[in-house]
């Protein structure tokens, strides 16, 4: 994708998300930035952050999903579209890594498998990645769709 096309697409994403927020009556300000080559970050500020981040950021993820589908052609060409607000993604990553560590230690000692609550692909990936080098345990995902969850078991 050329720089011109990229900039044009970034503008279109910004217009789309602002329009979406506006028509949803959400009290949020939208900022769209290029955080890395071919990476667009859409971040939010404002009164409705709690609504956006409640239930494990269900609304933030819904908006991100719709935007990725709406700009599916660009995504297929390698453009990354990431939605964030108030440092949520980083906080969530730290929380998941801590949960992963605790679960792995428990399984290693007890030899009893531990199954996490269902999580989206992004969260499951963080758990798997965090435990790749952890000796004595293995991880796998089980279940389908919305019910897919990470299982930690002794190796």
């Amino acid at each position, binding site marked *: 994708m050329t720089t011109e096309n990229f900039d044009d697409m970034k503008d279109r994403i910004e217009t*789309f998300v602002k329009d*979406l927020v506006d028509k949803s009556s959400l009290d949020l300000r939208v900022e769209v930035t290029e955080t890395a080559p071919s990476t667009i970050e859409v971040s939010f500020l404002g009164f409705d952050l709690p609504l956006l981040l409640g239930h494990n950021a269900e609304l933030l993820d819904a908006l991100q999903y719709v935007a990725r589908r709406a700009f599916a052609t660009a995504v297929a060409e390698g453009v990354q579209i990431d939605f964030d607000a108030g440092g949520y993604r980083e906080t969530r990553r730290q929380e998941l890594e801590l949960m992963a560590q605790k679960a792995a230690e428990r399984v290693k000692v007890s030899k009893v498998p531990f199954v996490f609550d269902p999580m989206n692909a992004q969260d499951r990936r963080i758990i798997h990645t965090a435990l790749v080098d952890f000796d004595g345990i293995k991880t796998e995902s089980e279940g389908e769709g919305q019910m897919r969850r990470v299982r930690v078991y002794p190796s």
Partner: protein
Amino acid sequence: MKELIELVARALVDHPDQVNVKEHEGAQTTVLELRVADGDLGKVIGKQGRTARAIRTILNASGTKLKKRFVLEILE
């Protein structure tokens, strides 16, 4: 709310001109009926209904703000 569903649906489908939304306002619940071109049904529903679920999540958030209940029906 009609405009919200139109905006999202038009952004997702191949035939935005064939997106049609009808709003039926009840006492407590407003029903939004979405129609798209035959070939675009999958685009608004998504794999395992994921797109439809995302649209409903956005709609519910909007309902929370407006203190109203909205139901999205995707018509075949």
